[in-house]
């Protein structure tokens, strides 16, 4: 046994209202720079829907993740080492920008500078890639709230697997949101795909990262990740991905997406697992058993033998204690209400989801039934096959049983809590029907519905946490001319050369740049000062238009 610790996340889809706050705050923090305009480390997808990039779940096309070869061993679906090197000169299955979307801005300048005329001037869209006028035809959440349905319904790869009859009813029956970040998998296909060995899994906390100094831009990771959560920065020529906000997590703060989640639906905590068992579990021939095999990989922090083994493996004591209090461990292993996203990709994902019960309650209520009644809910789970089958395609490779078990537990919590609120006598039968005790249902209610900050996020800080907080004042924080496109940016060999600036400083300057510029990302000279953001000090370049030469 080789115990390792992993920082993992659980999202309670029942509470997601699809507000995209997580996406926006994540983008402001990490990807508001030139080169990653199209990149969303966190995005929220409406289901049913195509997702972002379009139809990324169609692995017959995108070849992400792992598959089993004839001998039952794991093989990258996009091909093994030799094939990777042979096709390195042009990755045959790399999504193009059009598969994500072409980022754009608006020509706001025209609003103030258009000559007087009969028509109101408009701010026409401009491509952020070429700077030329563009048509907006797609975006990261174009089919938000089922926009474009039923035109796009058949483009959902999961709907394609359901039967014909089901598809027609789908739209009226069911809609929910799935926020997605990098899964920080136990068996990451992106890491395995990287020819340079630049991608790695951190042994302390399992966060999967790209070493920007070692990445050579071969783009194999983008193909390898079945969730398409590794992105190519087209300005720097390097791969970038969700970092699970490691600078925050190291000091015990939740990720930005979790911190700013309006619905408070994200949970962060430690999972202990046996690294030696990962490959064997991922080799399970039956896709439907992959969920159970992954559960078996996790270690129970309440088991003294496990704790001893963890201490021996060098896992810090406070991490083991955090694993005992981990809400993620409770939701995944103890109550089994959380399920992995697409276990059939065999990457052993570590961002899990509690399937949404609300659409089923809504459907019941709409048909005139009591949506809170346990019998009605249990019955509905049997008759409303569509949602359960769809969720099963999403979370358990098509096996409806774990999904139903999870939804039944959620239904039991609702019913149990209603009886308490109405002052009725507690019915042990409710908890018994889902194999739990009344106390369990109370605890789950507290964790899921009350969802206190300190209980949602149990994050042991890295040992260097305290020293790290001093970093920004002690270490040089970059030159003030180092903003993107500024004179201090980039070495003599093009914009990407030279020493990198620390992430925090770079994003700060990029933010400043974006706020003070209204042209596309790489237009030299087109820069103007946005007076709304001007602090009144000095005379920044671009405050006044360039002085014209005196006419002779």
């Amino acid at each position, binding site marked *: 046994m080789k115990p390792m610790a992993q920082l993992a996340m659980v999202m309670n889809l029942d509470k997601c209202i699809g507000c995209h706050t997580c996406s926006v705050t994540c983008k402001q923090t990490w990807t508001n720079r030139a080169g990653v305009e199209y990149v969303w480390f966190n995005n929220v997808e409406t289901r049913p829907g195509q997702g972002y990039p379009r139809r990324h779940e169609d692995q017959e096309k995108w070849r992400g993740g792992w598959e089993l070869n004839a001998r039952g061993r794991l093989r990258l679906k996009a091909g093994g080492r030799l094939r990777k*090197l042979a096709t390195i000169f042009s990755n045959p299955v790399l999504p193009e920008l059009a598969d994500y979307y072409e980022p754009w801005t608006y020509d706001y300048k025209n609003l103030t500078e258009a000559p007087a005329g009969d028509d109101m001037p408009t701010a026409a869209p401009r491509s952020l890639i*070429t700077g030329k006028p563009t048509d907006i035809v797609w975006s990261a959440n174009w089919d938000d709230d089922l926009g474009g349905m039923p035109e796009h319904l058949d483009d959902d790869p999961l709907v394609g697997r359901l039967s014909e009859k089901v598809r027609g009813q789908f739209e009226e029956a069911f809609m929910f949101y799935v926020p997605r970040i990098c899964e920080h998998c136990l068996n990451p296909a992106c890491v395995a795909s990287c020819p340079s060995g630049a991608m790695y899994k*951190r042994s302390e906390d399992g966060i999967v990262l790209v070493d920007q100094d070692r990445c050579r831009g071969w783009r194999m990771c983008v193909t390898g990740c079945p969730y398409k959560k590794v992105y190519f920065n087209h300005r720097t020529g390097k791969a970038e991905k969700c970092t699970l906000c490691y600078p925050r997590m190291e000091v015990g703060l939740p990720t930005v997406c979790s911190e700013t989640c309006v619905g408070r639906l994200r949970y962060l905590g430690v999972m202990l697992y046996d690294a030696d068992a990962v490959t064997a579990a991922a080799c399970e021939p039956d896709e439907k058993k992959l969920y159970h095999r992954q559960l078996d990989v996790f270690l129970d922090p309440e088991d003294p033998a496990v704790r001893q083994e963890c201490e021996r493996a060098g896992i810090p004591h406070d991490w083991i204690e955090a694993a005992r209090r981990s809400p993620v461990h409770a939701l995944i292993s103890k109550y089994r209400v959380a399920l992995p996203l697409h276990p059939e990709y065999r990457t052993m994902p570590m961002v899990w989801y509690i399937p949404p019960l609300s659409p089923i309650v809504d459907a019941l209520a709409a048909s005139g039934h009591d949506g809170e009644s346990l019998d009605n809910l249990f019955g509905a789970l049997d008759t409303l096959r569509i949602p359960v089958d769809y969720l099963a395609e999403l979370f358990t490779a098509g096996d409806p049983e774990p999904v139903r078990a999870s939804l039944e537990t959620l239904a039991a919590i609702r019913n149990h809590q209603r009886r308490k609120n109405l002052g009725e006598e507690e019915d042990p039968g409710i908890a018994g029907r889902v194999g739990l005790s009344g106390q369990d249902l109370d605890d789950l209610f507290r964790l899921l519905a009350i969802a206190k900050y300190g209980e949602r996020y149990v994050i042991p800080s890295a040992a260097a946490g305290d020293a790290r907080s001093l970093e920004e004042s002690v270490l040089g924080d970059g030159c003030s001319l180092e903003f993107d496109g500024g004179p201090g940016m980039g070495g003599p060999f093009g914009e990407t050369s030279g*020493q990198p600036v620390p992430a925090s400083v770079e994003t700060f300057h990029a933010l400043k740049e974006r706020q003070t510029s209204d042209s596309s990302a790489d237009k030299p000279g087109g820069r103007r000062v946005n007076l709304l953001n001007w602090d009144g000090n000095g005379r920044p370049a671009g405050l006044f238009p360039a002085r014209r030469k005196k006419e002779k």
Partner: protein
Amino acid sequence: MTSAGLLLWGVLPYVCLVALIGGTVWRHRYDKFGWTTRSSELYEKRLLRIASPLFHYGIIGAFFGHILGVVIPKSWIDGIGIDEHAYHLIATWLGIPAGLAALAGLAMLIVRRRTTGSVFDATTNNDKVMYVVLLGAICLGLAATFWNAAEGPYDYRTSVSVWFRSVFYGDPKIALMSATPIVYRIHAAVGMVLIGMFPFTRLIHAFAAPVFYMFRPYIVYRSRDARQLGARSPQRGWERVR
């Protein structure tokens, strides 16, 4: 021995070698972040899909052709039973397809770069200069091969190759090189310039060829460096204090 000959065949090779080795070490030390293929596949894929492998496989073929003809002494080749005539046939009939593939691929890549707006926007002046030299070297190499096939056979293995190896002995045989046909001399000169500018252009990505991928385990684990606090390793010398 003319002074031009001395400069071209006695001095330039060493300048280029110093630039190649020194530049690569310097870049590895100070510009790891800029060391990338700078791929434009995200912008445009249809043409790249054909042109890029065509060019790269062609240029790799040409590279190994140069190893065979210039680096390995003629006596060794003779020793394994390949005489001058057989070598000439091999060099012509493998060299021409490889050169043509590289040329066709590069031509397509340059056309693509010029005509696709987003790719052209991502092209630096450095790239443009490099493309001129690279295209020149390939064209001249092909010209020399064609000339050799039509007018020849000319055995450059007794002149160019001997000079090439003599450079590494520290005793460049300048007179040998000065006597070779003009097309070989121009090709060699442009080739040296290309080698000299190699580490200062995007060509540097060739040195990142990921051969170790064949031997490493699939999943890479790395420990958080306890000695390093920032997002980058501390720079040498004193940190700036404000």
